[in-house]
């Protein structure tokens, strides 16, 4: 039964000739989890917000959206977790929706008690949104939406700004809401890994149109059959590996499914687990016994940390939430002064991408930051990162992924010798991630990137470092790093017990050919 049906729906934003979404036909079935996927700017958010009248985008519409639920039974969680909370404590925020609905005190107390129990948020009730992590804020926003007991839940890129572990627990919560409470869920995401495991059906959009529609398995196999080079980026790496090995016949989304179906031809020889500092000979950054503690903070964030980064070496710093990745980058950038220890840089030409790339822009147009420098290089950056269309837009009006790319372009244009990137792949779609990695490597700068994105680090990094307890616990080349890890590693490594870490390793291990339309 269709809860919402969209027929021939198109929407034009006031100032544009091209429709943001075009001729959409869609059935959202009751009790299902539907995932709408697509690259940044493909119209998925426009489509999602059109489903709830109160927040529907303003523009000229054609076609029809008919829902068999009343508008007040549709809950929505909008993307940016910073602006999701409107008051100064969590409990006020959770009560806010119910107060707006005019519920009496007994029903408010009842809903509050049981919903908070369901979410396990008792500890956070009296905290201020400012001290919550991104994952906790997003969970609080979801909890607030659930207070109104919606029948249909719309989520706009709920996990794209979260680290993998927070994203996983958020998606598990969505799954529980769907399975235990029978709430129908529609999620937009720009990457499929993660959400695909809880999806009943998946819709792939591009340029405002639906290009694929079906169950996750069907969609992945259809992309494979069509040898669709562009959309092949939306196949998660494990699914890509399983499709390659089985030559398009079967697809696995979880390590469990993969391990059940495929056994490697031979176990790979483990390479020596040392950092292969093959790239660059000169030291670009040397940290010695760094010590840092935030004023008034409870403990030391950085404890006697030693680290060396070579010129031209692409280093990824991994580690759990709050392990001090951002702090370390800020110290190397010179924003924070270490309390003790030595920091040596071979150059003062530093490029720094902050965690929130919005802070990077202070001009009115994206172009303002992209001025000066080598003209040819500038043009090539703009084309490679797909920024041509957004040059004249305000930095706050473009999508998070586009902002991230524009900031990187602006940094690279200055030709820095040391590149410090805080979560560079946050909000970036799979294709652009590859482009970004290529550009970073080509720039020849000593790069230090903090990231949670294990696939990205495994595929592109020269060296991976694990930050734990304020120090670099160990550092290795990606294969040794992720192959030796059991929990903090890629899904491919989980599925193969560490004998293959990336898609490329799978190809080698199974001695098969990479299909021509797949690029890495």
């Amino acid at each position, binding site marked *: 039964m269709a809860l919402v049906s969209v027929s021939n729906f198109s929407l034009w934003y006031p100032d544009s000739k091209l429709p943001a979404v075009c001729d959409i036909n869609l059935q959202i079935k009751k009790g299902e989890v539907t995932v709408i996927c697509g690259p940044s700017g493909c119209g998925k958010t426009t489509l999602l917000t059109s489903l709830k009248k109160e927040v529907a985008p303003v523009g000229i519409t054609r076609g029809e959206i008919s829902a068999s639920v009343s508008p007040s039974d549709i809950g*929505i969680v909008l993307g*940016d977790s910073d602006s999701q*909370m409107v*008051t*100064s404590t969590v409990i*006020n925020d959770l009560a806010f929706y119910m107060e707006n609905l005019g519920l009496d005190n007994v029903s408010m107390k009842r809903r509050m008690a049981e919903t908070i129990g369901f979410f396990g948020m008792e500890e956070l009730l009296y905290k201020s949104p400012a001290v919550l992590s991104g994952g906790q804020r997003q969970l609080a926003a979801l909890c607030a939406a659930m207070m109104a007991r919606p029948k249909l839940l719309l989520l706009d890129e709920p996990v794209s700004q979260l680290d993998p572990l927070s994203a996983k627990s958020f998606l598990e919560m969505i799954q529980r809401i769907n399975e235990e409470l029978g709430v129908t869920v529609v999620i937009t995401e720009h990457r499929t890994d993660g959400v695909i495991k809880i999806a009943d059906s998946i819709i792939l959009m591009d340029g405002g149109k639906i290009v694929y529609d079906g169950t996750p398995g069907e969609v992945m196999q259809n992309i494979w059959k069509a040898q669709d080079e562009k959309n092949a980026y939306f196949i998660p790496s494990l699914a890509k590996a399983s499709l390659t090995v089985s030559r398009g016949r079967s697809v696995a989304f979880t390590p469990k499914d993969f391990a059940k179906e495929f056994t490697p031809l031979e176990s790979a020889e483990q390479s020596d687990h040392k950092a292969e500092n093959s790239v660059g000979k000169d030291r670009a950054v040397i940290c010695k016994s760094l010590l840092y503690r935030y004023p008034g903070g409870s403990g030391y964030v950085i404890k006697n940390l030693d680290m060396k980064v070579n010129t031209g070496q692409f280093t990824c710093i991994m580690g759990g939430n709050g392990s001090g990745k951002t702090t370390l980058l800020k110290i190397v950038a010179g924003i924070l002064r270490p309390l003790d220890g030595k920091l040596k840089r071979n150059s003062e030409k530093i*490029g720094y991408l902050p965690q929130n790339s919005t802070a990077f*822009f202070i001009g009115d147009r994206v172009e303002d930051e992209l001025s000066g420098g080598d003209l040819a290089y500038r043009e090539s950056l703009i084309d490679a990162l797909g920024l041509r269309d957004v040059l004249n837009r305000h930095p706050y009006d473009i999508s998070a992924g586009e902002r991230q790319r524009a900031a990187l372009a602006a940094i690279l244009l200055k030709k820095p010798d040391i590149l410090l990137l805080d979560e560079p792949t946050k909000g970036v779609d799979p294709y652009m991630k590859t482009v970004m990695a290529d550009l970073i490597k080509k720039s020849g700068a000593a790069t230090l990137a903090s990231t949670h994105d294990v696939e990205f680090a495994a595929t592109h990094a020269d060296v991976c470092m694990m930050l734990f307890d304020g120090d670099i616990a160990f550092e290795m080349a990606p294969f040794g790093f992720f192959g030796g890890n059991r929990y903090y590693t890629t899904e491919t490594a989980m599925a193969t017990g560490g004998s293959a870490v990336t898609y490329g390793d799978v190809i080698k291990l199974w001695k098969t050919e990479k299909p021509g339309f797949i690029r890495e």
Partner: protein
Amino acid sequence: MRRNKTPKKELPQKDILDFRFYMIHPAVITAYYSGIFACVFMFSHPAFVALILIFAIFTAIFYCGKAAFFGMVRTLVFFGVIIILSNVLTSHRGVHILFYLYNNPITAEAAVAGLVGFAMLSCMLILFLSFNRLIDSGRFLYVFARLAPKTAFVTSMTIRYFYLYRNRAKEIADVRSIGGEDRGGFANKVRYYARIFSALVSWCLEEGMKTALVLKSREYGRHTRTSYVLYKFIVSDGICLFAVAALFTLLALGAMTGAGQYNIYPKLMPPSVSLRDMIFYVLLLLYLAIPLVTEGVAAVKRRMPDGSGICQ
């Protein structure tokens, strides 16, 4: 090389939840503190002001710890010097002339008036220390929301923004600190800060639009609003409120009929003490002792061997 440096030991603040008075309904605590604030202005007798000042210092140390109070002393001294000096220099009333400064008389009356003014200000500031600890912004808003729901909601949103924007301004400045932008010279400096400010403003406006959308998505303003009851009003809250109301009424009546008053101008005289003053002095002492009595009763109840005190 120094390794494993340990920071200077800081005295940990006692957990506010250990205090029974904190668990009194926030509206009652707010009423109680409003009463003391009023008393600061109602009584001008030095003995009364001194009593309130001592109480303020005591509660500040009791509820917030020594560090919080002594951290404030420097600010207080600074204000004290300014107030006394400005009063002495601008007011030349009174008959006890101490000396002449550039042909202007400096009077003892003006100095004492400045001192009393300083004492009153100190009372207020020090009282706010413990008040802030007992009634944080969330609890204050809760109380306030009962009186003016819309204003309270707007205030709550504003408080959130205050911290958010402060952090944002820092984020923007951090990024700019790396670019090596020319900040030499006054004009460049002004340009630099103006650009950061303008970026912050557009960020805020953008954020405001998103928040508006969130409000809309949570159906704000579409139905008659109710408000969530966070704090129950229990019997001991009632007893406490009664004590606060009764004592304060008496004190107010006393102040209106002239108890605890002292006039500095036109001529400085040693303060007189009447029987009526003494009665109201005791009443004020009782009023100020309310939190202490609450803590004391709770402590006694907790120590009762059979727990009968708690179960009553």
